[in-house]
């Protein structure tokens, strides 16, 4: 790992990942998945606006999906527990590289890792910020990917969300 400081966009994957990782912890997951990337990205008001939903709504939607899945296999509502308390994510050093992020002790799922790596390549071409590009990449996923399931459960209009993100870039 290189120790010398790097300019943006290197710090962007790191802070995005920390937000997503805390959401994974809160939910009781042992890996950071694409659905947690969405939760993390929803902390950015501009991105929440593009998706047309807020963080708490998305958290609740995931809990409701768990509830339905458990009910479908015959495990009733009596089996539930509160989310795990989390600290408000603390933004870390801007010198950390994407590699360090992906090696963090709560690992990313293969799909989340791919989405982050692809987005990090794509921003050189697309001129989106890393969080915007990551949201665009995640919006392309199809069920049974958990992010795609969440997007569907929230009733997000994917093409409208993409358009709003493009307007955002034009305005920047």
């Amino acid at each position, binding site marked *: 790992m290189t120790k010398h400081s790097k300019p943006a966009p290197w710090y962007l994957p790191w802070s995005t990942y920390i937000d997503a990782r805390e959401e994974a912890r809160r*939910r*009781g*997951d*042992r890996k950071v998945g694409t659905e947690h990337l969405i939760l993390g990205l929803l902390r950015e008001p501009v991105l929440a606006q593009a998706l047309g939903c807020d963080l708490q709504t998305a958290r609740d939607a995931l809990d409701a*999906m*768990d*509830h*339905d*899945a*458990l009910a*479908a*296999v*015959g*495990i*009733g509502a009596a*089996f*539930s*527990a*509160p*989310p*795990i*308390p989390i*600290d408000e994510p603390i933004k870390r050093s801007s010198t950390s590289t994407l590699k360090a992020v992906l090696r963090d002790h709560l690992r990313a799922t293969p799909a989340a890792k791919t989405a982050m790596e692809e987005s990090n390549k794509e921003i050189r071409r697309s001129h989106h910020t890393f969080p915007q590009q990551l949201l665009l990449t995640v919006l392309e996923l199809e*069920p*049974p990917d958990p992010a795609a*399931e969440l997007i569907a459960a929230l009733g997000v209009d994917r093409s409208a969300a993409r358009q709003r993100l493009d307007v955002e870039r034009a305005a920047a």
Partner: protein
Amino acid sequence: MNAEDIASAIASSDPSLGLRAALALHRLAERVEADHVARARQQGWSWQQIGDALGVTRQSVHAKYGKRLP
């Protein structure tokens, strides 16, 4: 509901729901663990005692919860 009923309900279900349910059970277990580790600390349990109860070392339980719990 006993374990056999749960197993047969899971076996007969649609895989997309069944697989999601399997992960939901992991999440449920993690939430119950975190909740009760916090209670144990409030009641004065040592990290060693919590580790023994969970079948892990005191170091690993402290690494997981020590930052957030006294």
